[in-house]
């Protein structure tokens, strides 16, 4: 017979193994993303120099020669790959084609700041509001709130984010003139620590944040509701009820904590969705974030920017997924045993 102590030791060991496995898997995924990033931009048919550096009269032949040197574009593909790996390791993606002399990564990092302001704000709202709606809907299952919130969730789930953003502009900018329709600050202003700037920032943030939040609330409330409804059919809930606990206690102590498990994964995985959703919002509102920059880069064939943004987003999402996986190992014993 196992003593409690032995079981604990066994669990610690198996959870350590599970975590090691997750980390290794994430590293492999990251490596594959790096390879994909190389192949996407190099192995398309045609002259690699022409493909990586588009025909642009503003780019001088000397500069092209320098780029060819830096990225080894005149060398065979496998040597190019090693040059690329080295460059990626030192986070060098080359200069932006539209602003020669500025490294693409610097530009993307500046834009990332704005994206984080936007997605950070709306993430807080969507998690809190979405989960609350989900819990109430599951608790009062089949009631008016459940049906109403389900209809609301599905309606906004089915709505393209960019279209919702356009409708917000029509209603609150053109119609009611409450909030400005574009950019992150009034034109000419820069981000400084002052009250006026903060108010300006907030006024510009309201509509983009709403467009991002409302669309994503649905994902949270639907999954929270589904998870909680699932948990409510479990036998231990019946047991808890049979013990004579009130409905509120059953919900608070037994159902919600267990239903939270999928939410942990969702919150992390939703980062991917947030970045995807932020793309559309940023484009419609001309919000100078990473999504807006990426879309601009596709128009001007600004590949270094595209590559840097792709890499940065992939790293962020892989990292978020890893954290979610590790948390799950600690929170859910079943995951531990599987690994």
């Amino acid at each position, binding site marked *: 017979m196992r003593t409690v102590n032995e079981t604990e030791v066994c669990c610690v060991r198996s959870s350590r193994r599970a975590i090691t496995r997750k980390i290794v898997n994430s590293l492999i995924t990251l490596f594959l993303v790096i390879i994909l990033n190389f192949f996407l931009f190099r192995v398309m048919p045609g002259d690699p120099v022409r493909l990586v550096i588009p025909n642009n009269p503003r780019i001088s032949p000397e500069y092209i020669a320098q780029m060819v040197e830096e990225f080894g574009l005149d060398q065979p593909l496998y040597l190019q790959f090693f040059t690329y790996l080295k460059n990626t390791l030192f986070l060098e993606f080359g200069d932006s084609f539209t602003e020669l002399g500025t490294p693409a990564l610097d530009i993307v990092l500046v834009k990332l700041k704005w994206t984080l302001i936007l997605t950070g704000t709306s993430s807080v709202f969507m998690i809190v509001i979405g989960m609350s709606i989900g819990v109430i809907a599951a608790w009062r299952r089949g009631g008016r709130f459940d049906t109403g919130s389900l209809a609301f969730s599905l309606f906004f789930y089915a*709505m393209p984010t960019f279209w919702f953003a356009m409708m917000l502009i029509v209603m609150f900018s053109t119609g009611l003139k409450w909030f400005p329709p574009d950019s992150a600050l009034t034109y000419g202003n820069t981000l400084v620590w002052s009250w006026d700037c903060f108010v300006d920032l907030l006024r510009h943030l309201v509509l983009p944040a709403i467009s991002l939040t409302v669309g994503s609330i649905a994902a949270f409330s639907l999954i929270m509701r589904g998870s909680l409804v699932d948990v409510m059919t479990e036998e231990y809930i019946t047991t808890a009820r049979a013990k004579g606990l009130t409905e509120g206690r059953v919900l608070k102590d037994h159902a919600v904590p267990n239903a939270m498990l999928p939410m942990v994964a969702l919150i992390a995985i939703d980062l991917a969705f947030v970045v995807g959703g932020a793309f559309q919002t940023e484009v419609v509102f001309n919000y100078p974030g990473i999504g807006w920059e990426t879309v601009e880069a596709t128009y001007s064939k600004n590949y270094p920017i595209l590559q840097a943004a792709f890499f940065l987003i992939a790293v962020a999402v892989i990292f978020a997924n890893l954290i979610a996986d590790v948390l799950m190992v600690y929170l859910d014993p079943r995951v531990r045993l599987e690994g």
Partner: protein
Amino acid sequence: MSMMTVAAAGSQDAKQEPKMRPMALSEPTREKMRLMRKKIRQTWRIFKGNRTGMLGLIILASFLILAVFAPQIMTILSWIGGWSHGYDPFEVLGPEGQATPPSSEHWLGTDRRGFDILARTIYGTRVSLEVGLVATVVSMGLGSFVGLMSGFWGGWRDEVLMRITDVFLVIPWLVLMIVLATLLPGGPSVGKVILVIGITGWSSTARIVRAQVLSLKSRSFIERAKSIGAGDYYIVRKHIFPNVFPLVFANSILTIALSILSESTLSFIGLGPSPRLVVTWGNMLEDAVDAEAMFNGLYLWILVPGLCIVLIVLGFTFLGYALDEIFNPKLRKR
């Protein structure tokens, strides 16, 4: 001895089957078809009781009619409106370079190219449905194939396939779509949009199918089939595929909704086919933004195509959830 004869008769049956006319089906085949018809009837009975599912089906049927009979519908509308003829979506009817507000001739106005917005909205249904359906077939096919192989083989091949799946699962769909649409050779076209959506969307299907295959593999009936000498291909075809298919099917309806959303987003960003060649709701909305319709009071130009996207996506979502409930009996009790 008797078992041998039965087996011999069975194999003879199988040999003859392809040559036979549909009139003279063998006994087991007829029995199978009878069971299938019964199953379909049962499914329909459960489906009829599902109000959301029916609503979805009605919405989708309306859009299907809109897509198939677009020219006829325009003709009928021209009688009602007293226009000279049923408008074509690529016919220059209004002033070029200047969008016009709604009028009795053009109920939703004309866009900057002089095209009638109502006609374009109605014809736009065609591309949405086409892209939604074909892209879903591509991504479901790819995902099911990878999931089946990965789950069935196991071992290092499973590892390799799953790591590749992870890459596609991890990268945000819109980012991957934008990069693919920019970098794939050839100009923007409907085919390319379909390909991009298909390549982007297969990974979650692969995961679901793999999980299902893994749980099936541990069941005793697979073991039994193996022990009497069934080959891999036979087991996949006869035992695994039929059990995975309902899951994939319900899921694919929801994927159609996502594909349609993806298509409209791609077109909106300007990575879809040109508005001069193909009408989609996405590129109508892109046109509207370019013409600053949000600030010029041309609201119907934005409202109507957008609502069409919402409705068609809702239709597929409703239908998908209803089918999910039918094929996952555990959900039905709720």
